């Protein structure tokens, strides 16, 4: 591959991710609005929010690490996007593999932990403690699921996994071949989105939005951008693992939006769990399903 | 309240010296006692007549008599009647006994009366300020505290005086209230 082409792909992939991610944010807010019997935000609302937040004046800084934390949070996901193949663009997915991707997806939480830890707000610290606990909760089933898929495919290369699924049409999709793993993966995915009932680390009424409490202007804008990437990464990863990726852009986008619509419709019907209930739930059901699924694969 | 219970209550209350009972309606009894007999009365009401709910403690500032009136409203969940026990204490020094050991809700009311009237309750668990933590004036609910004079001194509130209104007033029109009548809310002038 020509270096220039690779460079173009590496630039385009996060950009596409950002645009699709903004639409996903809009979709989640629209779904919430429909469930709550109201109209919901206008079409470009996520864009307005992000531009406005980045145009605000920087009034307070809690130090270098506080700033770098946000960069890490965004950078981790931007790097992850280049490892997620989209129709027509593979980026460095073949070289990176799924394990690298999994590691990259942990960086944002850790970056946020560093950044928030510096602002001396107890709410933020509690929020970060909860976010890391939640990460611990959903990463175990996620790792089991990814291990199962990789074992079944015989490779950790995401491009190959997608190609294998696309080879035989619908019947070779991961979700058909490994339904238990797909269900476990869906639950883990929902938890990693941080929406109800797994929204333990934002929790406005308890800890005043936790990690976000001291974020102002551009810092908060960074988090909004991060959310776009987060939604995109998680849904595209699920589509790649279980729904055969996308052969065309239409196919690909339809699948990713549909996958995201499932947790989005569930989220607004539930309150949030307590932290220990979340751990208990995540370590019980998805892990059990995942292990049984892995046993079938083995 | 049935007739027998009423009679029984009257007999019970007769044990307190200097008591004056007035039955205002079938469910309301007013009792006047000397200040030093109140703890005994409340103990009697709570222990032997089932008046276990302290509904409120009200304070009235009778500035002309130089007295505070404290009213203890107690309710019985059994006989469904409310006894209001009235006592009077001297305005100076304004000290009385807490009834917290009999009724726990008293803690809030005594704290409230303490900051609003400056009455000190001995034995109350917490006499810190609650509402007026950032207030350093006199206890505001006392009758001698003139809140309008206070706001005229510390705050400006009437800003709306546009030129057209000034012109109207200069011509003798508009709603003109002489300064001495502006503070119409004082009772006696």
């Amino acid at each position, binding site marked *: 591959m020509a270096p220039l082409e690779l460079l173009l792909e590496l630039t385009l992939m996060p950009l596409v991710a950002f645009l699709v991610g903004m639409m996903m944010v809009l979709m989640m807010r629209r779904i919430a609005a429909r469930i709550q*019997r*109201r109209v919901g935000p206008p079409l470009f609302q996520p864009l*307005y929010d992000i531009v406005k937040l980045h145009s605000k004046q920087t*009034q307070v800084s809690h130090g270098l690490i506080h700033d770098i934390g946000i960069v890490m949070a965004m950078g981790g996901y931007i790097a992850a996007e280049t490892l997620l193949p989209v129709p027509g663009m593979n980026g460095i997915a073949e070289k990176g593999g799924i394990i690298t991707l999994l590691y990259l997806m942990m960086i944002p939480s850790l970056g946020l932990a560093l950044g928030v830890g510096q602002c001396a707000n107890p709410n933020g610290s509690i929020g970060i403690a909860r976010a890391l606990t939640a990460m611990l909760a959903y990463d175990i089933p996620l790792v089991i699921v990814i291990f199962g898929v990789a074992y079944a495919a015989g490779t950790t290369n995401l491009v190959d996994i997608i190609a294998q699924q696309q080879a035989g049409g619908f019947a070779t999709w991961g979700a058909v071949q490994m339904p238990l793993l797909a269900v476990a993966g869906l639950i883990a995915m929902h938890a990693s989105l941080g929406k109800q009932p797994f929204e333990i680390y934002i929790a406005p009424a308890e800890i005043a939005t936790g990690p976000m409490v001291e*974020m102002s202007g551009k810092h908060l804008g960074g988090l909004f951008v991060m959310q776009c990437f987060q939604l995109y990464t998680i849904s595209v990863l699920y589509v790649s693992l279980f729904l055969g990726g996308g052969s065309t852009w239409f196919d690909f986008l339809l699948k990713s939006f549909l996958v995201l619509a499932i947790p989005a419709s569930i989220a607004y019907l539930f309150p949030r769990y307590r932290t220990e209930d979340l751990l208990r739930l995540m370590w019980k059901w998805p892990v059990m399903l995942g292990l049984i699924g892995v046993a079938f694969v083995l | 309240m049935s007739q027998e219970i009423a009679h029984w209550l009257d007999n019970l209350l007769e044990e307190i010296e200097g008591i004056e009972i007035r039955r205002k309606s079938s469910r309301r009894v007013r009792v006047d006692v000397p200040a030093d007999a109140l703890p005994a009365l409340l103990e009697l009401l709570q222990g032997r007549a089932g008046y276990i709910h302290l509904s409120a403690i009200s304070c009235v500032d009778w500035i002309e008599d130089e007295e505070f009136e404290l009213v203890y409203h107690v309710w019985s969940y059994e006989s469904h009647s409310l006894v209001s026990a009235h006592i009077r204490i001297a305005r100076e020094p304004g000290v009385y006994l807490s009834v917290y050991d009999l009724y726990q809700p008293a803690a809030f009311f005594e704290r409230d009366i303490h900051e609003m009237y400056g009455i000190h309750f001995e034995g109350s668990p917490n006499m810190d300020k609650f509402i007026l933590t950032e207030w350093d004036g006199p206890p505001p609910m006392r009758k001698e505290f003139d*809140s309008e004079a206070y706001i005229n001194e510390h*705050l400006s509130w009437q800003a709306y005086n546009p030129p057209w209104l000034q012109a109207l007033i200069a011509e003798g029109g508009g709603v003109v209230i002489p300064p001495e009548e502006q503070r119409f809310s004082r009772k006696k002038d």
Partner: protein
Amino acid sequence: MSSINQIPVIEAKKGNPLARVFDELVRFCRSRSLFILHYCTGCGAIELPPAMTSRFDMERLGIQPMVSPRQADILLITGYVSIKTLKRVILTYEQMGSPKYVIGICSCTVNGGMYWQSYATAKKLDEYMPVDLYIAGCMPRPEAVIAGLQQLMDSIHAGKANSWEDYYRNYDYYLGNQQKLFGDNWQTPTDVIAEAKHYNLLSKGTLGVHTRLLEQHQQPLEALEMRLGHNLKEPTE
């Protein structure tokens, strides 16, 4: 970047057509995305849930509630401000990032409303902080609140909602009124004068008698800490 002076100020070049387009975009986005912090100082707060929820749905206009002052653009003062609350309101206001807007809801924020006789409430909000918009009424209906917010949107889009600059330009006046009410040793953890310099908004009214008084009484700020046995000074959140 621990000190304000190290944060660079980016000055837009004048006359650059691209910059004008960009400014226009920024103004448009600012007017279409309003994060409100509703400080529920009084009765008016009861009409905000209806305005936000299903029936009137402010989110369709891009208005959403936020939780902490750092995140918000608009400070909604929903009713009379008692003097104890006013201190917290000022702390909250100073913590918000610029550009910020203040809306006074209910007649009580205008001149004390029906509590004009009360010893415990501050009467005129705009003596203590610049107010962009008043929504009068006791209490204003959700429609009135939304109409008021739309007016604010229009003036943000037109670039007229600049009253936050007034707080820096006339800080001495606002500080004077605050000192009159709270006593001479009133101070907030925010260094407003340094911020005014940072924004290039230092003017004649920024410094004066009252800021000199503040300097006399000012105690050096202590580092915040998270530890037991130490009372946090002022509730900021």
